[in-house]
């Protein structure tokens, strides 16, 4: 089959709306009678709510509803049902929502929220996962033993702060350490950071008088919002409609469920008027979830020839106050957390730990950015310990066909090649030639670093998606799929695949943008770099379904067997007599013979994809099949460190991924360039800063900086390796999250390689680099 459109860098299909400012986001919506919501946030990290007096707020003109937690006996959560809609009884983090108001204007709503009087009694708090696992630590959730979770998948430890304990056991690590010539033990950590979508979380909800709810939300996953709300409220799915228009960035922070229940309940209390709530930027930092912090302890045994004999790892995840999504990050680190290495003996304990900090959730990489900071720094340190080049050391230990992963999955020729990725970036940044690196002068030192990565979609073993292709009279086709494109470019990729398989021009494919649970087929969630992979399969199957219907009618119309028919240029034709053909237009609403007799009917194609072959993991050993596919990658970086100030400039960044097959070259590159800069944000700049009381003090763009146009690498190189994924659409795998992973490690490794300072914490800010150099200077 020729594949004219697959791989082509066609511009994204929604470009026009986005460059003209006509793309509609939730914040642009206005409904008749719509009220405005406002949240009141906790000023304490951990405190008992003694009393809430809402009388002054309620008596303010223009206020339609004031809600407090006591009225709302609902608990929410994706994997661990631990989140109240509003704090009730106590607050668990600074910035938690304590009360909410709906009023006729944003100004009145804000004034009313200020008039709510809350009396708190501060409680002892815990801000550090290491402290939180100690027996005498204050408990963040006294009722953990009563929370609903997925039994046999997540393992909370009642009456402690441990929300989940994931275990991985392969081989015997003690035997492995006994066989080692050297043992290297280190502790690494990184702080919580924010996703920073440019559009904050926004929701419009209308709880109608007939009891049905309509929601428009900046969400990644309309069906997950509907499902979780339905479960929490005890309402039928068919009574809840969730619509997702254009979304202004998400990065995992808009997966699961967020403001939707609160805004719905405000609408109910406000006399069934629609309510809009837009999180302020401060709320986006303090109230909506962030990325979890991590403390990682790694012990590696290695022979003097450079073979890793054992790796024992403890991951302590700082989940913050809630872990409804976070428990699955800890679980993913359990089955993926030794990196893409072939190691016979591995032991991982991954603990998701409650603290009194803002809570964490999925963030581009789903734990992998975090634990690869530890794994890939450790690999360089182990190589240094045995005097081996760190690229050679990795090559000696990487997964390759025939290797068995830590959960017992065999790697094949088609799994993808991390070796090729590492080779490519090492060559691109001149890893072996780095001894010839000149100095930049004036105390500036040039350095190179490398790091590898892998990630599979972290999703339940029954994760599913569906697509519908519905022909119009003129043989254009409507594509309906509920995966949300908030910038990744998946919608464009789907249109390319549809056009390719229906053999029609891409402009004849009409992608339906507003994702609507009332009108669109089911998808689980837009997360985990799974949409092109799973959604692509569903779209292709829907197209094949259409083709089979078209050919079936054409076969009867032309009186030839189906097997003799081909399609091209919007026509079905007889393979050996191309002149005998029927235009799709004559078929898509059913075919009419010259006599008037008609057959078939409107063509509607259906395609589905479920994560086949995955298993629940053994609770004691973590063995099983958690991964639908692995995307491997590597980064090589060249930086210049100003030893006088600790500032780092990225001169070159080379990144390679085995994507299986590029579907859209330009958009694929866009994912890499954007994701890499987001990774540099984690590497160099970003961190939550707290005061002693656990209040987040840099919850604004004034104090929390993300990379700007001035912070980009001088040169970047994106390299795509294409080892086809047998069950992927055209052989493709996902690559949305991967660019961000291991960027921090590559930079940290470069600093250590050139200057001999081992920095164990992120970010690699000028201050941290400068102080590390100063300490080394004092020591030497």
């Amino acid at each position, binding site marked *: 089959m020729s594949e004219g459109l697959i791989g082509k*860098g066609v*511009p*994204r299909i*929604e*470009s*026009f*709306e*986005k*460059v*003209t*400012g*006509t*793309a*509609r*986001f939730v*914040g*642009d919506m206005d409904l008749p009678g719509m009220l405005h919501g406002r949240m009141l946030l906790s000023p304490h990290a951990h405190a008992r709510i003694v009393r809430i007096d809402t009388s002054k707020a309620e008596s303010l003109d223009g206020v339609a509803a004031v809600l407090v937690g006591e009225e709302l006996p609902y608990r929410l959560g994706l994997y661990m049902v631990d989140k109240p809609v509003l704090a009730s009884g106590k607050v668990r983090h600074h910035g938690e929502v304590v009360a909410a108001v709906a009023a006729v204007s944003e100004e009145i709503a804000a004034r009313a929220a200020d008039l709510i009087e809350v009396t708190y009694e501060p409680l002892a708090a815990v801000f550090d996962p290491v402290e939180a696992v100690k027996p005498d630590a204050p408990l963040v959730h006294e009722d953990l033993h009563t929370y609903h979770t997925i039994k046999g998948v997540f393992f909370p430890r009642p009456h402690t702060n441990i929300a989940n304990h994931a275990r991985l056991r392969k081989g015997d690590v003690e035997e492995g350490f006994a066989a080692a010539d050297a043992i290297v033990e280190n502790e690494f950590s990184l702080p919580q950071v924010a*996703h*920073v*979508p*440019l*559009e*904050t979380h926004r929701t419009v909800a209308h709880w109608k008088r007939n009891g049905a709810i309509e929601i428009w939300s900046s969400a990644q996953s309309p069906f997950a919002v509907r499902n979780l709300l339905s479960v929490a409220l005890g309402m039928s799915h068919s009574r809840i409609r969730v619509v997702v228009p*254009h*979304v*202004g*960035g*998400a*990065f995992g922070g808009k997966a699961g469920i967020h403001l939707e229940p609160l805004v719905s309940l405000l609408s109910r209390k406000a006399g069934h008027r629609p309510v809009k709530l*837009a999180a*302020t*930027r401060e709320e986006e930092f303090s109230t909506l979830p962030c990325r979890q912090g991590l403390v990682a302890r790694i012990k590696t045994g290695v022979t003097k020839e450079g073979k890793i004999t054992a790796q024992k790892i403890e991951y302590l995840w700082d989940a913050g106050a809630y872990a409804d999504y976070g428990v699955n990050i800890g679980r993913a680190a359990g089955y993926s957390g030794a990196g893409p290495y072939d190691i016979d003996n591995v032991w991982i304990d991954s603990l998701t730990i409650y603290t009194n900090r803002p809570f964490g959730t999925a963030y581009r990489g789903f734990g992998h950015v975090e634990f690869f900071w530890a794994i890939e720094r450790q690999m360089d340190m182990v190589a240094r310990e045995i005097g081996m080049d760190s690229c050679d050391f990795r090559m000696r230990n990487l997964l390759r066909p025939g290797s068995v992963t830590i959960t017992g999955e065999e790697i094949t020729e088609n799994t993808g090649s991390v070796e090729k990725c590492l080779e490519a970036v090492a060559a691109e940044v001149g890893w072996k030639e780095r001894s010839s690196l000149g100095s930049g002068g004036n105390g500036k030192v040039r350095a190179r670093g490398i790091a590898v990565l892998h990630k599979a979609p972290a999703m339940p073993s029954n994760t599913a998606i569906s697509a519908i292709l519905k022909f119009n009279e003129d043989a254009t086709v409507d594509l309906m799929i509920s995966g949300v494109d*908030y*910038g*990744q*470019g998946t919608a464009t990729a789907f249109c390319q695949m549809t056009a390719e398989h229906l053999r029609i021009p891409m402009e004849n494919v009409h992608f339906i943008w507003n994702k609507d649970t009332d009108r669109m087929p089911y998808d689980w969630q837009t997360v985990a770099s799974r949409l092109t992979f799973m959604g692509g399969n569903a779209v292709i199957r829907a197209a094949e379904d259409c083709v089979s219907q078209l050919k079936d009618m054409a076969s009867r119309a032309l009186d030839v067997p189906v097997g003799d028919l081909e399609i091209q240029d919007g026509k079905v034709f007889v393979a050996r007599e191309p002149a005998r053909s029927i235009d799709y237009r004559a078929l898509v609403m059913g075919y009419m013979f010259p006599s008037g007799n008609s057959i078939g009917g409107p063509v509607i194609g259906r395609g589905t994809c479920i994560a086949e072959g995955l298993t629940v993991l053994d609770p004691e050993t973590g063995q099983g099949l958690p991964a639908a596919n692995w995307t491997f990658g590597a980064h090589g970086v060249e930086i210049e460190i100003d030893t006088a100030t600790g500032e780092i400039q990225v001169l070159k960044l080379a990144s390679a991924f085995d994507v299986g097959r590029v579907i859209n070259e*330009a*958009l694929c*590159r*866009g994912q890499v*360039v*954007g*994701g*890499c*800069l*987001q990774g540099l944000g984690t590497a160099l700049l970003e961190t939550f800063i707290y005061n002693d009381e656990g209040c987040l003090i840099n919850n*604004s*763009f*004034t104090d929390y900086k*993300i*990379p*700007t*146009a*001035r912070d*980009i690498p001088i040169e*970047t190189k994106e390299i795509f390796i294409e080892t086809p994924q047998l069950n992927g659409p055209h052989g493709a795998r996902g690559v949305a999250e991967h660019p961000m992973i291991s960027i921090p490690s590559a930079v940290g490794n470069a600093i250590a390689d050139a200057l001999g300072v081992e920095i164990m914490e992120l970010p690699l800010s000028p201050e941290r680099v400068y102080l590390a150099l100063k300490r080394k200077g004092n020591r030497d």
Partner: protein
Amino acid sequence: MDSHTIEFEINGKRASLEVVSHRTLLQVLREDLHLSGTKEGCGEGECGACTVLVDGRSVTACLTLAVEVDGCSVRTIEGESEGPDLSPLQEAFVKNHALQCGFCTPGMIMSARALLERNPSPTEDQIKEAIAGNLCRCTGYRPIIQAIREAAARRKDQSAKG
């Protein structure tokens, strides 16, 4: 509350409005004039999503009071092109894949527009400087810089021909 009548030009058309003194230009654009292409990303002048042009200079509409534009000419993304047509700058954004989620895009284009009006041949550093106040979390900025370079080159070509 104190209110004032202001008169200004919005995307080439006269407008006369009664505004309360503390209302921002962003509120008036989005809520009173229903020009929702200008986005709010932070409300404190740090992200650039609400960038518009006032008398040709780029400003953050969230930090500009509506009364300040009395007598001025204001341009928003809605004034960048008409109907099915795109401006050369918008076309360069499309062609260079200089957008992903699209939320920062209107403000980014307005900052680029202001730059090209005052400096038709900017260097790469000048482009970076001009958009350093416009945060983008998706694209990594490189395709945006490329789009602005290309739009500048095209303008130069056209003025050379003209």
